[in-house]
């Protein structure tokens, strides 16, 4: 399947997902719009556009194709996930360190020295800016 075809299917599917939710809200009348009125109209339009994209998929303008690199696609979200998991449990400095180390593996040749330098530098930066300067109530390190 072409990328354009995939885009059409994804568009219609998202429209369908929103429509299924919108139908649960009161639709109302034009003079008294319910919470479901506008979302239902929009979801239907999205499904319609998905169909339109499918029908015109050969005429649409070309996609500037980028090859998918698996390393960044896996390691950067993984780093952010670790940050989210650690920031309240272990504190903002361990979370930052985890993020830098994991996202460092997005590079084809990860360097331990670079990660260490970045972790120390960014740890100090986060402490200085967010805690000393902006007085945010973050836990720095929690044991």
């Amino acid at each position, binding site marked *: 399947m072409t*990328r*354009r075809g995939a*885009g059409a299917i994804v*568009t219609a599917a998202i429209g369908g997902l*929103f429509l299924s*939710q919108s139908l649960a*809200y009161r639709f109302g*009348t*034009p*003079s*008294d*719009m*319910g*919470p479901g*009125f*506008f*979302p239902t109209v*929009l979801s239907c*339009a*999205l499904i319609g*556009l998905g169909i*339109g*994209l499918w029908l*015109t998929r050969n*005429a*649409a*303008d*070309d996609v*500037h194709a*980028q090859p*998918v*690199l698996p*390393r*960044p*696609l896996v390691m*950067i*979200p993984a*780093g*952010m996930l670790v*940050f*989210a998991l650690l*920031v*309240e449990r272990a504190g*903002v400095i361990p*979370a*930052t360190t985890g*993020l*830098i180390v994991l*996202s460092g593996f*997005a590079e*084809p040749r990860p360097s331990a020295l*670079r990660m260490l330098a*970045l972790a120390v530098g960014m740890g100090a*930066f*986060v402490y200085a800016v*967010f805690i000393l300067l*902006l007085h*945010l*109530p*973050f836990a720095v390190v929690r044991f």
Partner: protein
Amino acid sequence: MELVNNLALGLHVALTPQNLLYCFIGVTLGNLVGTIPGLGSLAAISILLPVTYFAPSTSGFIMLAGLYYGAVYGGATSAILLNIPHTATSMVCLDGYPLAQKGRAGIALFMTTIASLCGSAVGIVVVALLAPLLASIALEFESPEYFALMVLGLAGAAILAYGSPMRSFGLMILGMLLGMVGIDVNSGQPRFTFGVTSLMDGINIGIVAIGLFGVAEVILNAGRARPRLMRAGEITWRSLIPTAADFKSALPSLARGIGLGSVLGILPSAGTILAPIVGYTVEKQVARDPGRFGHGALEGVVAPEAAANAAAQTGFVPTLTLGIPTDPVMAVMLGALMIKGIAPGPAFIGEHPDMFWGLVVSFVIGNALLVIWHLPLIGLWVRLLTIPFELLYPPVLVFVCVGAYAIRQSVTDVYLVLIFGVIGYGMRLLGFQPAPLLVGFILGPLMEEHLRRSLSVARGNPLIFVEKPISCTILCLALLVFAWSIRRNVRRDPAAPRVTGPPEPTVAEPL
């Protein structure tokens, strides 16, 4: 006289040490991220958005605005030296890079700086004169007029500014739907929250922007080989100085670029993106020898750059006086204001004169700072181009995560940024430009509200939109834009001037 008083007020606000500092930080960071390949102005603004939540409203807004026009300035540097387009400067690549290859990079850089400065200066004057005027007219607007304006804005953005109208419409609608997440103010009904309590307040536009642009751009660019073409030593002071002939050939282009940019910048939802494209196209059409374009014509650098900068300033007119953003960056800025409880609209200037006039004067200060910064330090900026991305993206990610968490101290926001980041990356893979989504996200809830009010007043009769002369005119304009796009798509005339399609980027194109 009133203008003088207002400007005096603005001067008073903009010259406080705190606002000067924020303006300085904004334009410097803007210039920096504009120059560095791999981060667009939208990504930069999104990443720095959380900082503004903790700054006073006026200072934060001055900084965001500085970041924006600073990035437009800086973007020309990487466009000329590395052939890397940013949205606002994509047209500068077309002739700027060939000029650099001919050893005339210094002159191209100098002339773009002059073009930026002149474009901005005229743009600022237009803002100061036109914004209060438009605001006084818009005070008469009611819901039908606003709804019509938003339809025009959406049509303009979808059809004129980005590649495929259907894709852009799809993304705008998705943005509008995402804008509805949370409790419906009229009925108290939670919508699209999927049972997650922290979604009840809705999704913060900052979170959407940080994910779609900041994170998606990092995933897209990390681990890729990057071109390193330029050595800092190649740009010397002497190489910056243009000849009298250069000046003579560039002056009319400069004037045309400024004129076009100032006018186009005011178009809701499309202006700032269209301005440099139209600026370039017009130059090529009026040139005696159009064959030079694409091979290093100075006019092809000066006109789009002047137009981009003029539009970057005049774009604030509809954004602040009508509450309708002229491009996704403005949408993010509107979001930032709304979060602070400030509603941009016709009453904005009257209610927050210090903020508006302070902002206008800060534009002057910021642009002066940019010139002082930009030319003498050009060697430094050029050296920045050689910073490897592997040293750049981990700090960006830290800023993204800590910033997203800091907005509400909610881990859900970090997860949302992550989800939007992956979605944004997926969109790029499928050939969707995520920018229109942000415009929809801001306009969606407003459109629903104005539609509800209009129809409620008219007892459900949709003819209210065509019975009122102003809204009818605006809707006709929207229809014209729509009809033009259909005609363009049906005919697919290869000779017709294409308003979309920036040059092929050498790396993943930043937004």
